[in-house]
């Protein structure tokens, strides 16, 4: 991979730091009155998701990371691995470990496309679409006529996620949910 110098660090650039692939979040050029120039850089570790703040001397460089984001459809889980297939017509499949799947495990639905991040051709993380439609498999019975009030109750969705829903929602209904916040949006 190519090396990138601090002045090429832009949001989204993927680089290697301490052996892990990272995405640049923010890069600030810092220079005291008459002193040496530095770059204060925020990087998101693509494996742990943690954000690191590091300082580099201006002009220093980091090796690029062979990281790609690909659209893949979720197929099934065999209990140990979760299997996804590229949506580019190649039918190429990737097996994803639980660790890489992280919180996305509770938003999985067959035939939905997810963004799978590959590093050196291994899946390191899976990002769900921002909105997903899922069926309610368990919740307290809906309260008729209670469509205006602000109350809410927990509902378990077919993917396993538990979200707060309005009191009028019933088991078996399909809901639109925001996967970033875990909030109920509407009936689908």
């Amino acid at each position, binding site marked *: 991979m190519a090396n990138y110098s601090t*002045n090429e660090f832009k949001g989204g650039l993927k680089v290697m730091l301490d052996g892990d692939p990272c995405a640049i979040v923010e*890069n*600030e*050029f*810092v*220079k*005291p*009155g*008459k*002193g*040496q*120039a*530095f770059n*204060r850089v925020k990087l998101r570790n693509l494996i742990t998701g943690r954000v*690191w*703040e*590091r*300082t*580099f*001397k*201006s*002009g220093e460089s980091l090796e690029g990371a062979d990281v790609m984001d690909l659209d893949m459809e979720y197929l099934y889980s065999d209990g140990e691995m979760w299997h996804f297939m590229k949506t580019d017509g190649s039918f190429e499949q990737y097996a994803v470990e639980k660790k890489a799947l992280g919180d996305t495990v509770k938003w999985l639905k067959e035939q939905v496309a997810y963004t799978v991040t590959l590093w050196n051709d291994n899946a390191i993380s899976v990002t769900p679409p921002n909105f997903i439609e899922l069926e309610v498999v368990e919740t307290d019975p809906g309260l008729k006529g209670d469509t205006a009030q602000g109350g809410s109750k927990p509902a378990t969705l077919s993917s396993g996620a538990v979200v707060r829903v309005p009191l009028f929602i019933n088991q078996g209904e399909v809901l639109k949910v925001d996967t970033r916040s875990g909030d109920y949006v509407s009936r689908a």
Partner: protein
Amino acid sequence: MVTDWRPTATLEILRERARLLAEVRAFFAARGMLEVETPVLGHGGSTDRHLASLNAEATTPAGRERLWLQTSPEFAMKRLLAAGSGPIYQLARCFRDGEVGRRHNLEFTMLEWYRPGFSLDELIEETVALVRRVLGRELGDEAGPLRRRRYRELFREHLAIDPFSIELAECRRLAAERGGLSMSGASRDDCLDLLLSLAIEPHLGRGGIDVVVDYPASQAALARRHRDPEDGEWVASRFELYLDGLELANGYDELTDAEEQATRFDEDNIARRAAGLPEVDVDVRLLAALAHGMPEGSGVALGIDRLIQLALGKSSVAEVMAFATPRC
């Protein structure tokens, strides 16, 4: 076809910028100072190890020459002072390679002025008056009180160390820890610079103007040095002015000794060689002017783009420039 042809500042901001520049000129006109314009291209450049100069090839009567784009108009203005110009100011376009960011632009406008016969304290007072004038029309007198802060006192307060006496190894360890990088082999000044930027600067100029004085003698650049009356330590006779965490101005009790100046240029180039940086041609005409005699006095350089940015409540210099570097 590219889509980013539009200005990085709004037209409204550009009108405000023009008005503030007129304020600056009115401020100096009222004080009887002469506005000057000196060349952007010169035979000599800044040797400062921390400034990267751009150069240009040009055909002149002397043939094909390498000329330097100025990093500040300092040398040419000092030659004017030596020629007897009296107090002068300039809104000068300057160039510093690699300096692009929220607070930096590859080329920018420096407001620089020189006051023969002024002490550093008198110049601090005038600089603060100028800053308040530019901010004042917009914000009332919100620049707040003026605080004079000693370099050493700031390090004691924010980092609990004495920057003059701390062991180099300890200084490196602390800088590495704060910055999350290796500082092995770094000089004391490099470590102190990093600590100042990361741990101190963000706190400066909050709710008032901070003027930092008594820098280490090793950071004197083109300023005189004097002994601290309190502890006898050599310090640089210079100041920096901060507002809202931004360094706005850098002032010197100007070095007028040609020999001392020549020595510092040579030391800079030796340090450049050692660091694998290109050497910069020394401005021999500045040295000749100093040898002829430059009146004693003080001078200051102020980043006018940053001051305008603060006056107009913007968060980057790009927002007060017609076309900032990425779109130049």
